């Protein structure tokens, strides 16, 4: 029944991930953004947190934890609070693992999950977005057609995380019929001759995350590559899981911006007092705090519907749109609170603003 408190387990998970994000991820954020590289040791350390293998059953080598979208949202928020690009990299293996776990055939689970949990961090990837201004998950232009017992894929994808680093990429493509329900997922081997991967993209934000464009030209895959086999997948659910994850991360980035601006405003003096003591700044901070809490509740509600196995298309859409806008406003205000100093690539707020703008656009880069 109605409740707003975390379980003891969730509280513990949150504390652990939050500590990791603050102590390990955050200090690495600026150097990673400048260089475009994330230290391998940091990724290796994150693997020990069990963020990917946790919810995978023991039969496949995972820890057998209960998979929960609410818990996933909590984890996503805390990691993103550390750094969005690094968080997306750390969670990328889920992009293949979770859909395979939930919607794959037994053969697919055996093939993909066991190697994942066998040792160290194994990159994973999914390709959803398409490089056109009117990209629409409800009207994908990448298409899969039957060919004998297999399929041929044609199309283009963008913002595909770790494509060049992953052995296979889960490519979402439209089926013969239009609409969300008929979108299929195809596990395409990176070395497939019909697949070409660009050089790493140059993005406004998430610069430490390697993202790529893909071209699929008469890309042949056999029947076993279609996720879920004949049954296919529940694409609206995958999309909802993705939107909830990204919305949760938007909350994390917003919270990072807010806390930094708040602390700065209490220190920075102007006209004889901390600027936090002036209403213009104080009210800005108050509204930022309200928006963060509101966005989080919307994310949790959408996640809760997912955990009940319910359709969360509307709620996840609402949560994503709201959190994206809230995050942008909060991050923008954080730069504003820091004034000229906020503009310099030394304080993190400008980085968070560049990252924040992405949430209204990005789809499919994370999953709970």
């Amino acid at each position: 029944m109605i409740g707003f408190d975390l379980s003891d387990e969730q509280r513990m998970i949150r504390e652990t991930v939050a500590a990791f994000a603050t102590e390990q991820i955050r200090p690495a954020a600026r150097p990673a953004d400048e260089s475009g590289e994330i230290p391998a040791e940091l990724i290796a350390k994150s693997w020990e947190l069990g963020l990917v293998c946790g919810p995978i059953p023991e039969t496949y080598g995972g820890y057998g934890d209960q998979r929960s979208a609410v818990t996933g949202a909590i984890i996503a928020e805390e990691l993103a609070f550390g750094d969005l690009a690094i968080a997306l990299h750390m969670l990328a293996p889920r992009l293949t693992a979770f859909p395979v776990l939930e919607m794959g055939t037994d053969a697919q689970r055996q093939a993909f999950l066991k190697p994942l949990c066998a040792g160290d961090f194994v990159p994973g990837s999914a390709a959803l977005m398409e490089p056109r201004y009117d990209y629409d998950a409800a009207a994908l232009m990448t298409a899969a057609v039957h060919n004998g017992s297999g399929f041929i894929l044609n199309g283009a994808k963008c913002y595909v995380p770790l494509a060049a680093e992953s052995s296979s990429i889960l490519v979402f493509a439209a089926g013969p019929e239009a609409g969300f329900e008929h979108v299929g997922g195809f596990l395409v081997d990176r070395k497939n001759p019909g697949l070409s991967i660009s050089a790493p993209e140059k993005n406004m934000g998430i610069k430490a995350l390697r993202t790529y464009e893909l071209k699929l030209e008469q890309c042949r895959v056999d029947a076993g590559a279609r996720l879920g086999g004949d049954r296919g997948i529940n694409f609206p659910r995958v999309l909802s899981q993705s939107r909830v994850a990204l919305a949760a991360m938007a909350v994390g980035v917003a919270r990072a911006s807010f806390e930094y601006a708040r602390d700065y405003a209490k220190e920075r003096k102007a006209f004889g007092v901390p600027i936090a003591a002036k209403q213009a700044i104080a009210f800005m901070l108050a509204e930022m705090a309200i928006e963060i809490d509101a966005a989080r509740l919307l994310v949790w509600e959408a996640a809760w519907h997912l955990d009940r196995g319910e359709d969360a298309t509307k709620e996840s859409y609402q949560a994503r749109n709201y959190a994206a806008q809230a995050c942008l406003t909060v991050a923008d205000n954080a730069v504003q609170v820091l004034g000229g100093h906020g503009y310099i690539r030394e304080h993190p707020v400008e980085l968070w603003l560049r990252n924040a703008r992405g949430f209204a656009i990005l789809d499919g880069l994370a999953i709970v």
Partner: protein
Amino acid sequence: MIDFEFEPQVVKQLKTYHGVAENMMRPISREYDEREHDKPWDFIEMMWAGSKATAAAGGDAPVRSDGPRLRTLYTCLSSEELCWGDAGLFVSMPNAGLGGAAVAAAGTPEQKERFLKRFSEGKPKWGAMAITEPGCGSDSAAVATTATREGDYWVLNGTKIFCTSGQMAAEKSEGFVVVWASVDKSAGRAGIKPFVVEHNTPGMTVTRVENKLGIRVSDTAMLSFDSCRVPLENLLGSAEVKKEGGFKDVMATFDATRPIVAAMATGVGRAALDHVRDFLSDQQVPIRYGISPRKLTSLERDFMEMEVQLKAARLLTWRAAWMLDMGQRNSLEASMAKAKAGKVVTLITQKAVELLGPLGYSRTRLVEKWMRDAKINDIYEGTQQINLLIVARRILGYSSRDLN
């Protein structure tokens, strides 16, 4: 656990409230908005009978095996439902009101019995609270009404304005008005005390009942206190001028009333939203969730924005109320909810009028009334600005001296 579901009996109870809203309130909404200073006595008698029955049954909130009853939260739910019907009619319902809330917060057990028992028996009654004065609203510590001890009485002198249900409480029922007055101006806030002034006490006069933008059926009164003598035992709590108690006790009631007012606002906002949704559906205008936001029509974008903002306000309200019921400090969350709800419901109802174009502007639909009714929620029980100030102080760890 994070959970957004309510017990089946609550869902059922809300359907009953919704029935009242739809069948008893909506049909008389327009009439009493136009008539302004008349009271809908049939409706009043019916709601009074209902509230007595609910009180006798121990209230709406179900008993739970795994925790306290969520009284504030369930009051939010039922308030939202009834304000979906008509916020003015809701506010004008006979009950202990803010006056009763002050008694509950600051009164001794004897005073609670003496003042509150009446609301579960006999004829309809109203309790009111009088704080605001011509010279002070948000800065309630600047109250100028005085209370001077004379023998066995406190003597009140001053003027109060914007007292909700003030006329009904003071003159038209066996109710009372809780009046904030200062026993010692030099002590500032600590000198302000709540006094229960019984109906028809000589020296208390309703000098005016306001004409308002919205919630017109609710009487908003100006009360004059001219050597108004109040028995000593009507001072709530203790007369001792000390740093704690009195003013602070009553301010603490805002932790409960702010989420409830936020819920009331949500009801008005939802009325407008539901009306626009039904209208668009009749016109066969689709609202397409899930597609690229850049493909949405401007009308879809506006509607979705209204809808999600309302949802945000509602969730913040539930959280604040739930925290109070669970015994957690909720002043920050209560002010967040009130600030958010006041703002977004103003915008939602204003947008609703606009979206319906010529039809929205007409007094043949209730949409324009809801816009007028909504606005007060961003003003009373702490304005938007005061609530933002409270949020700011809490997130910064500042006192009212640090940030004002």
